């Protein structure tokens, strides 16, 4: 026990934690939020909007990365690399 930590502080925490263990119905939660001055529908809509934005960002990053990886895998065979290098050299020679 930390110094100065006494029974009523612990009891208060215990009471709050005990009440969090009990399963509540959706109706109960909606009522509880209303009692706290929070409109369930609004808050869920706001939360889902934020979550969808995060998911979209993550998915667009995945879409960008995956074809690049597939493309590299297909093209970067030893033969293709040598061909690309030869072509590159040829271009440089043409330019010079």
């Amino acid at each position, binding site marked *: 026990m930390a110094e100065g930590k006494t029974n009523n502080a612990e009891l*208060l925490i215990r009471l709050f934690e005990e009440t969090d263990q009990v399963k509540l119905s959706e109706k109960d939660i909606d009522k509880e*939020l209303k009692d706290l001055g*929070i409109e369930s529908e609004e808050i*869920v809509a*706001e*939360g889902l909007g934020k979550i969808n934005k995060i998911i979209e960002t993550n*998915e667009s990053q*995945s879409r960008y990365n995956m074809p690049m990886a597939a493309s590299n895998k297909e093209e970067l065979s030893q033969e293709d690399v040598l061909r690309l290098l030869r072509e590159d050299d040829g271009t440089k020679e043409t330019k010079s």
Partner: protein
Amino acid sequence: MRDQLLKELKNQDWPGIIKELISYASMRLKLWGLLKNKRLKGYEPKDIAFKAIEAVFNGEWKWDSDKGELLPYLKYHVVKGLVANLAKNSEVISSIGSTQSNQPEKADDFSHEDELNATMVIQEINESIKDDPVLMILVEGLSNGLKRSDICNIHKMDTDIYDNAVRRLRTKLIQLEKKDLFTITYGRGKNK
């Protein structure tokens, strides 16, 4: 690994999680405020809840579905951790009373003043449950360090009766939250 995590996160019951998490964040902020007699400036329960959800998506907090469900992880690890971290930041702490400093504190370090705050809140709770014998048994049992199973065994109480009493206690605590407990306990609610 990352794709698997995103897939699992996408398949959650988000409307239910959002509501329960905001309710929990509200309780957690209030509890911290009651004990410390301080508040976190500019942070509403929904800010903490959304920050927690974002932290799990971004991998700042690493949820492992093999170790447990998402909602308890968000509540007991992420939200609890975020509140504790914010409480260490003196820039976001504001005192309720005039005698308090804005110094950050360790989350579980309770001073004598914290104990005084808790005592006054417990008195308020006891006052609010005095007409409910089952709730009085429950609070007394918990204050004596008993667990749910102990209280049910000793008092030959059905677990449904216990759980319903806990629901009533939860409602009482929310009612206390709605009142300004600092006004109740200190009589100085206007002094903010």
